[in-house]
């Protein structure tokens, strides 16, 4: 599989910048502590919010921090400079597909962040007894779900990056990304949304990025609901990939017909 070479190269690239790594690790630990104290404070006078108990919420939130590096891939930043500086010509004269290339390249840096930042954090949280494995079945489902979450977050970012082909500028779209994070359930789980907003969130693909895997991990998704949740995630992920294919072919057409 030739595309895995991109994954390898990008993983290696992550290791080149040690200062960057330590800074990421430190900020990640601080963010985790903030989440911990925040939810402890929120649950001080109550056992349950919108049907979500304290331990479930803490599990959702802390595992979210562990996976945050894996589920935050700015693939759009890999496309914008290519279009503006014209190096996209190099990509188009290679016997590869830039969409797949970036998918595997981004996977390399996402895996690097998961292993280098997420894993130590997970070990600390396990040692501190703040994270518990939910059982073999849920763990397997979670890992599967996490990978699909990666594909969805990549696709979202890729789509916004491909807009650069038309706008010639990389900024603008970025500002909408906070909305994607919000609807993904990164800040609070979807149960906390008012009814109408939850209805919106349920109809968007972004819940497949964060909410579905974290809800499986934290037990918010009951044992009988895991399979349907995974299936709906498969559907959303497939839809996003197909959308990327269509938009990508359109963008290449635009680029070759209109000119860079």
């Amino acid at each position: 599989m030739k595309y895995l070479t991109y994954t390898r190269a990008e993983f290696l690239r992550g290791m080149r910048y040690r200062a960057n790594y330590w800074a990421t690790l430190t900020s990640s630990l601080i963010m985790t502590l903030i989440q911990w104290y925040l939810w402890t404070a929120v649950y001080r006078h109550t056992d349950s919010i919108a049907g979500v108990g304290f331990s479930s919420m803490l599990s959702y939130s802390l595992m979210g921090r562990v996976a945050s590096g894996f589920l935050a891939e700015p693939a759009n930043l890999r496309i914008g400079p290519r279009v503006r500086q014209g190096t996209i010509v190099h990509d188009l004269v290679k016997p590869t597909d830039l969409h797949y290339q970036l998918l595997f390249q981004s996977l390399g840096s996402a895996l690097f962040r998961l292993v280098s930042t997420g894993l130590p954090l997970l070990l600390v949280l396990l040692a501190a007894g703040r994270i518990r494995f939910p059982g073999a079945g849920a763990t397997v489902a979670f890992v599967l779900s996490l990978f699909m979450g990666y594909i969805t977050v990549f696709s979202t970012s890729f789509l916004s990056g491909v807009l650069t082909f038309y706008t010639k500028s990389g900024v603008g779209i970025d500002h909408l990304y906070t909305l994607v994070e919000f609807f993904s359930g990164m800040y609070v789980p979807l149960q906390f949304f008012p009814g109408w907003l939850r209805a919106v969130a349920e109809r968007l693909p972004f819940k497949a990025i964060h909410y579905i895997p974290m809800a499986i991990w934290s037990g918010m998704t009951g044992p009988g609901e895991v399979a349907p949740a995974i299936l709906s995630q498969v559907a959303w992920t497939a839809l996003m990939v197909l959308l990327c294919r269509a938009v990508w072919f359109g963008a290449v057409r635009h680029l070759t017909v209109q000119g860079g």
Partner: protein
Amino acid sequence: MSSTHPQISASHVAHGSHEAKTAARRRDEANAAEPEKTVEEPIIIVKELSREFRVRLDGESFSDRVRRFFRPEYRTVRALDSVSFSIRPGESVGYIGLNGAGKSTTIKLLCGVLVPSSGSVTVMGLEPYRHRTANAKRIGLMMGQRTQLLWDLPVKESFRLLGKIYDLSPEIYRANLDRLVEALDIGSLMETPARMLSLGQKTRCDLALTFLHDPAVVYLDEPTIGLDVLARERIRDFIRGEKERGVTIFLASHDLDDLEIVTERVLLIHEGKILFDGTQMALHDVVGGPLSTLEDTVKQFYRGARLG
């Protein structure tokens, strides 16, 4: 200027489609006169190729610009105007023109990164823009201004990556790498991250990457840009060596010195039109003096054309 350009008597001038055909016929006659030379099918055929771009107008006054922000207006620019030429396998061709003459546009059309507005391009029997990926396996492209090295990683990783992308067997990869490392003297650079290389070192590595997969045709877009005399010399020798191995070389440059690299044939492009297609010697004859700077040559060319 070029539309009123009068006919000139030199045999190799290709101007517009009719003249291009005449020039091609004359070349064929020249080939026929040398029976020992086998006439092969051209590897690249370009026929009456034109490419237009739509440029958004900016406007003179502030209010003009505000109006055009809401209702953009466009102007059509003809970057390439009915260009025709063909290149035989193993031939090396210098594609010479001033900045903005249409050199890069031609290369992009040959690589299939641009679709022609009219006319056709055929490279090894395929239309590049219809079969971009199939075409990509058999060609190499080097752009002197845009590196394809992995910026943060040691140079060897860029080679490794391309080896995998082009699906080279370990034996072929090893053999080609050894040959290129030797020819371009880049063995000592393999462990260095690309961002720490000098321009000359980067150019040598980029060249080696371009030839790694044994391409049949290589397009070089200003490969010696910004290099010193010694570095140029080295690159020139290398490209000559690759040419002797039978690689077809298409070298675009605004620098007449680069002609020494390719020696044989020159295509002179100006404002999207091919002004001249022939040997360097013939170009000398038409200009009637030393080929100093390209701008002078183009001017002299017009002057000569008027006299003729």
